[in-house]
Each structure stands twice: as structure tokens, then as C-alpha cells.
């Protein structure tokens, strides 16, 4: 990974801010979709696609690319916006989100946008797919593999049994090049995660599966990138990064409110939010 300079951090912060603006513009135009999760994960996506990942937007199907599996597909506005800002899609196309015929389906669909590693939306299935990819790569390339496998999940998503079946397998298989990044924003649809189905002590639970677990501030580029570097350096077990994020991050009025999980901003709300982001 390239060295993280102060100048690069500044660039990452600006990029994340632009991505957040795109997310808001997309959602206002689409008139439906999820707001809180995408805004909260903008920094992690930026750190991945603009610093940590081995990838090439000019050659999206490059065999040696790192794989990113978005398990919590409902946060796809941040994925689409990041892909656009990273050169995979024209930024104008973002305005087609959720519309009939768009490549940017309401939840990611590979049939419409083949550069996606997988389709998602129904929760709880991404980790297993990432494990399948990593195991196939290990069988094919053994120790010579140069790829990293990343899976992004939500914290509410942890309620799904499939996730824990996959944890057992990832623990057993000791997949050193697998990194699970969990959006710990404490919200899901019906309320705060600790009221709906408590996860705590979450870090300890994951450690018990024999993972290398780090819990970090998911809005601090130094911390995010340091954590990804550490995860890459651990090769005898899978890594987990619990990214503590603020749902709705960047728009003060929307932050930490589960009500923003699944609704888009109105035109007026969007303008207010864009003003706030542009003034940074």
C-alpha cells in the first residue's frame, strides 16, 4: 500500500465529501432509498477504493484485483457513488438510481452492472460468498495468491444466522487474506441494535471465533487505513474491522437517527444537506 501522507488524507477527505454529496443528489432524484448507512460508510469506501485496494477502473475484470463483496446491499448508493468517483461509471449515471432500465438497481444486481462482484440486498449472504471466493483462490493459487478479499456487512445484518454459520467456517479455514469490515452504526430498521437484538460484547464474540479483531473510528482515515494494513499483515487468520460509524454522517440533523435508515431526503432537505457539506 502507498504511504499515507497528510496531503493524501486531505485528498481522501475531499473525495469522501464529494461522494456524500453524490449520495444525497442520487437519493433526492430517486425519491426512495437508504440514507443513513451510505453516508456513514462513505469514509470506509473512500479509504478502500482510493487507497487500500488493488484495482484498476480501466480494467474492472483484471483477474488479480482485490475482491470487495458488499453484503448489506441496501447501502449501494455509497458503492455506486464511489465507483463513479473512482472512474468506473460516468457520474451523470448516478442520477438514474432506482429508475426503470438503470444499471443502478435499487439493490445491486450483477446482471445490470457486471463489474459488481455480487448481487445483494437480502442480508446475511455476503460473508459466505467472500469465503467461497477466497477458498477457491487458495485452492487455485495456494500461497502464491496476491489477492485480498473484503466483505462489508451491517451490524443489524449480524442478526442473520447465515452470518454466524460463515463465521464458524472462516474461523476453521483461517483465511488470512479475508477482511470483514462491519459497519457498527448501532442502528437497524426498527431501532437501535442494542434494543432490537443486542450484539455486545461484540468484539469478544468475534475474537472467540479466532479472528484478529480491531475496533476503530470509521471516520478517521489514519485509523481506517492503519487497520486495513494490519489486517493484511495478519496471514494466519481472518481479520475483522469493526468500524464505529455515525449513521447519516456529515449532515448534523440526520446523524444517529434510525429513522433515516430507509428514507431519502426531500428536495429541500437535500439542499440543506448539500449546503452543509459544501461549506466544509
Amino acid at each position, binding site marked *: 500500500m502507498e504511504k499515507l501522507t497528510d496531503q493524501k488524507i486531505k485528498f481522501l477527505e475531499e473525495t469522501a465529501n464529494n461522494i456524500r454529496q453524490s449520495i444525497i443528489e442520487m437519493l433526492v432524484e*430517486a*425519491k*426512495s*432509498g437508504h440514507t443513513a448507512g451510505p453516508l456513514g460508510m462513505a469514509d470506509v469506501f473512500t479509504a478502500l477504493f482510493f487507497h487500500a485496494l488493488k484495482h484498476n477502473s480501466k480494467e474492472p475484470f483484471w483477474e488479480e484485483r482485490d475482491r470487495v463483496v458488499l453484503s448489506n*446491499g441496501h447501502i449501494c448508493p455509497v458503492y455506486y457513488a464511489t465507483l463513479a468517483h473512482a472512474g468506473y461509471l460516468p457520474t451523470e449515471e448516478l442520477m438514474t438510481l*432506482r*429508475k*426503470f*432500465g*438503470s444499471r443502478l*438497481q*435499487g*439493490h445491486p*444486481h450483477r*446482471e*445490470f452492472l457486471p463489474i459488481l462482484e455480487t*448481487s*445483494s*440486498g*437480502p*442480508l*446475511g449472504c455476503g460473508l459466505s460468498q467472500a469465503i467461497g471466493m477466497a477458498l477457491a483462490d487458495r485452492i487455485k493459487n495456494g500461497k502464491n495468491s496476491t489477492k485480498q478479499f473484503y466483505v462489508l456487512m451491517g451490524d*443489524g*445484518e449480524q*442478526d*442473520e*444466522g447465515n452470518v454466524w454459520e460463515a463465521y464458524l467456517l472462516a474461523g476453521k479455514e483461517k483465511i488470512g487474506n479475508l477482511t470483514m469490515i462491519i459497519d457498527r452504526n448501532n442502528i*437497524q*430498521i*426498527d431501532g437501535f441494535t442494542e434494543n*432490537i*437484538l443486542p450484539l455486545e460484547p461484540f468484539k469478544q464474540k468475534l475474537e472467540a471465533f479466532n479472528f484478529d479483531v480491531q475496533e476503530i473510528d470509521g471516520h478517521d482515515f489514519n485509523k481506517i487505513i492503519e487497520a486495513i494494513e494490519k489486517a493484511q499483515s495478519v496471514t494466519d487468520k481472518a481479520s475483522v474491522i469493526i468500524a464505529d460509524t455515525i449513521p447519516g454522517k456529515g449532515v448534523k440533523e440526520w446523524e444517529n437517527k434510525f429513522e433515516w435508515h430507509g428514507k431519502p431526503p426531500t428536495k429541500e432537505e437535500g439542499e440543506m444537506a448539500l449546503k452543509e457539506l459544501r461549506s466544509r
Partner: protein
Amino acid sequence: MININSKLNSKIFEKDVELVPTRKGFGEGLLIAGEKDEKIIGLCADLTESTQMHLFAKKFPERFIEIGVSEQNLATVASGVAAMGSLPVISSYAMFSPGRNWEQIRTTICYNDRKVLVAGNHTGVSVGPDGGTHQALEDIALMRVIPNLVVVSPCDAIEARKATIEALSSKITTPVYIRLGREKTPIITTEETPFEIGKVSVFYESKKPEVTIIATGSLVYNALVSARELEEDGVGTIVLNLSSIKPIDKKTIIENVQKTGAVVTVEEHQVAGGMGSAVAEVLGEFFPAPIEFIGVKDKFGQSGTMNELIEHYGMGVKDIKEAVMKVISRK
């Protein structure tokens, strides 16, 4: 013309016909049933408001269990709740329940003969912008193949309320699946419209009917609009509302197909295995007749508005009218 005995909404063909999602009828029915029967326990998987279970959950918080986003657990916990003599109602999106937890429903609920009401929301392409992952087009097929299970697909919010109340009454002793929609759709029936699980109703009957249109769910509305337009063009039809897909009212279906000798089935579901297939099973055995199937033809859904998608997948009024003309030519 509209069968007067069906007592349909008098505003049905007017521009300002009321639009209410069927899920709302379920939520209201559950609340009404819950007020009468203390045995009823609601369980939900992190979709309490959008599946309209919040009406019940707010009124009876002590009889509501929040399961979290875990549909397999939702079905299996409900089976345990039923084992203790309570009457569980589970709700989620149909793609996840019964989509994800089908085997759990089959074994721990139906095989065990536990009475549970399974409410599948967000069915059909009319779910809209969320896209194909969230548009259940297979749930009728999945559910009608399970022994012991009743399958109901109400045509509007009023019927959804009645079906929910009846499913939770002592009249029904088996588990029940109720199929619901997200979007607002026209109110077709009234309080007086006859409804009974296991019965088909005749909603429309022209003087000299040539085709029997059998529809289920909110597309019953499109079927009725088609029937009226066809009648103006001199083509008579009968429209049946087949909300009770299982058990299926063979007698009424056969009687009404005998009058015409041709059938068009209409459903917001895969043609394979759906309501049309259930009708074809009955007619194949007792009164073979040509059938045209309106429904999704081996495709996944996608993002769009309800109307765009209904048109795109060939379930609009124009498509139904074409199918009617086609089936007449096949007689």
C-alpha cells in the same frame, strides 16, 4: 357487468377510487383479531412498521416479540410459540419469509401442524424501486406445495383485513400464508362483499361470456377494467376473484369455465407454479379448456415504478385484453 351480489365498491371505475395497500388491511385485521383473542402473539423480523405489524405491537407490546433480522428464527420461534397453545403471527417481506425460511415453515410449522399465520409482504413487481431482490414472484408456488397450509392472496386491503381475521379465527385450524403488497392499490370490494377462505367469487359477468378471467391479488382490478372495456367492444367475460388459492374452490371454477370454454389467468407472480398453474391442475383434470397465463414469464423483477413494471412484464389491461382475444381464437 359487475355482479351485483358481489357488492363491489361503487367507485371502482372512477378516477378517484381509493388506493390502500393490502398490507394495511393485514395490519388492521391483526389489531382487530388481537383485541378479541389474547392468544395472538405477533413476531416480526425488523420490519414492524413496513409490514404494518406496528399497529398490533403498539397496542399489545407485551404480546409482541421483536426477533431481529433473522427470518429462519422467526419461523422456528413461532412454531415453539404455537406449541404452547398461543397463536403466532409472523411478518416480513415474502422474499425472506417464506423465501429464506421455507424449509423451517415446512417442517417446524406445517409438518408439525402448528397453526401460525405467515404474512408475506412486498410481493410482486409492484414493490417497485427496491428492485428484483425484494420482489417476491415465487411465493405462491413455494407455499401452495406445502401440505396442511392454506394460501390466501387478497385482492384489496378490505379483503386482506377479512382474510387476516378469518385466518386467526377458530374456523381455520391449519397454518395460513397471506400474500400482501407494498404499494397502494384500488379498493375493489366493500364490507358487504362476501368473503370466505376456500371460496371463489364471481365479480363480473357479461350477458354472453366467451372467456373466464381468473385473477388474484391487486391485479383483479386490471382484470375488471379489461372486462369492462371488452364488454364495450362486444366481448363478454366472467371475472373470478381467486383470493383463496388453497384450498381451491374447484366447483365454482369449473362451473364458470363450463359457461365459456376458455380461460385467462392473471397474477403478479411467475406463471410457473402460481395461481394459473393451480387453475390448470383443476381444469386439466375436470374440464380441459384453452388457457392463457398472464404473469411474469421466467424473469426476475427490477427497479421501476409499479405501473412501469406491470406494463413491462405484460400484466397491464392491454395485455389481459390481448390474452382474452387470443384464447377465444384458440377455442
